[in-house]
């Protein structure tokens, strides 16, 4: 495929790695990626093995499925059992355990849950089933939320009344702010998420460079992208510079995707949001604008939701904050594995525990 092979050239990867070793010095450098696809690429291409010892890559809360808290899942599960309601969701959400069960389990108990690839598929389900309220699980970061916003407007235009969304979107920059304010994690630089940045552009990261003196580089997903991004960060860190730079220029424009931003502004407004592991973060999520309240499943369909509880022993919260690596969870690889996941970080393929398990094995 075009634009992939060129960015996987092993010879150039070795040279970039050598350059990183030359530049990096001896001081500890902690780089955090806040994108599950980066986490996957880093493991898949063995990036950690190419870096000098003082550069540590830390996985942050980059997987939207993983950071979705139990009260959201529990509500989705309750809704699926309500008469004339159908839950439509991306496949990754199916196996994530809520407080007592997952959507997949509740489906076996009579819950109505259907997997879709696109919010448009969910809208089509609504068109085909006029007597049923189709609730789409609107999770995801800034990459995904514009696709759902566009679908909501399509429903408005076509007058499809029975399409609703359960909004659980999260915004990445406020989570980065919460992480740098946490004294337990010392982040020297951020690898900023590629496709989130394609939507939001570079501006939303500027406060990190300006106020916290933390360099940020938007990087692509291929091994050369990641290595070049690390080199750009290392160069800034050793020279005491803090800027927002863009390695993934072939896709990310400095101003982002204006069209997508417009539709987001028209659809959602900022709201405080709860993240698994990170707790409630101010303005880190969104809700539908009041004029779209009739599309909001939380307002429109009353259900009883069980009191939330966490999975005993699961350390997802600490994994998502970059405080521990998955093997330090006592359940990792034993009670918890991709066949029988206990926490969301093992369920989603972009979860840190799942990426570790796939490429590093049980221990």
């Amino acid at each position, binding site marked *: *495929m*075009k*634009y*992939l092979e*060129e*960015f996987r050239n092993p010879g*150039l990867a070795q*040279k*970039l790695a*050598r*350059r990183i070793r*030359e*530049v990096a010095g001896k001081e500890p450098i902690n780089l955090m990626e806040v*994108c*599950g*696809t980066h986490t996957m690429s880093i493991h898949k291409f063995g990036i950690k093995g190419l870096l000098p010892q003082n550069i540590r890559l830390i996985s942050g809360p980059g*997987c*939207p*499925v993983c950071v979705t808290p139990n009260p959201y899942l529990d509500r989705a599960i309750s809704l699926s059992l309500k008469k004339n309601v159908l839950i439509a969701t*991306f*496949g*990754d*959400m199916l196996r994530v355990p809520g407080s007592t069960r997952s959507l997949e389990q509740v489906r076996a108990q009579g819950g109505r849950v259907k997997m879709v*690839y*696109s*919010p*448009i*598929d969910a809208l089509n389900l609504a068109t085909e089933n006029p007597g049923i309220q189709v609730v789409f699980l609107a*999770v*995801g*970061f800034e*990459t*995904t939320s*514009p*696709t759902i916003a*566009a679908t909501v407007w399509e429903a408005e235009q076509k007058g499809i009344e029975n399409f609703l969304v359960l909004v659980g979107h999260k915004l990445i920059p406020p989570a980065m702010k919460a992480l740098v304010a946490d004294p337990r994690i010392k982040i020297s630089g951020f690898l900023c998420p590629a*496709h989130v940045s*394609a*939507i939001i552009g570079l501006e939303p990261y500027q406060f990190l460079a300006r106020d916290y003196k933390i360099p940020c580089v938007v990087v692509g997903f291929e091994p*050369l992208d990641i290595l*070049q991004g690390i*080199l750009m960060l290392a160069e800034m860190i050793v020279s005491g510079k803090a800027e927002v730079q863009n*390695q993934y*220029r*072939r*896709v*990310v*424009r400095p101003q982002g*995707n204006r*069209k*997508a931003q417009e*539709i987001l502004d028209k659809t959602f407004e900022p709201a405080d949001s709860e993240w698994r592991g990170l707790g409630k973060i101010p303005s880190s999520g969104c809700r539908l604008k009041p004029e779209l309240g009739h599309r909001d499943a939380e307002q429109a369909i009353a259900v009883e939701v069980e009191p939330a509880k966490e999975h005993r022993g699961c350390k997802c919260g600490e994994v998502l904050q970059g405080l521990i690596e998955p093997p330090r969870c006592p359940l990792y690889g034993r009670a918890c594995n991709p066949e029988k996941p206990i926490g969301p970080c093992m369920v*989603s393929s*972009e979860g840190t525990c799942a990426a570790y398990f796939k490429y590093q094995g049980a221990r």
Partner: protein
Amino acid sequence: MCLAVPMKVERIEGALATVSSAGMKMRVDLSLTPEARVGEYVIVHAGFAIETLRPEVAEETLKLMEEMVKAAEDSGEVS
């Protein structure tokens, strides 16, 4: 769920496009990237094209990489 891949635009009909990659074809919504043209590559996510790819910039990025490592080869020392 965050998977987003570059695919080539084969055909455009209104706000929809047929895109392809490695022999796989699918229909995507172009409402977030109305500027996309046939023959170009777009990043596809959840049934939508979310951004267009700029081939000339991809070339520039690769060149810049060569330069970044060449500086090292030339000087043979830490900058």
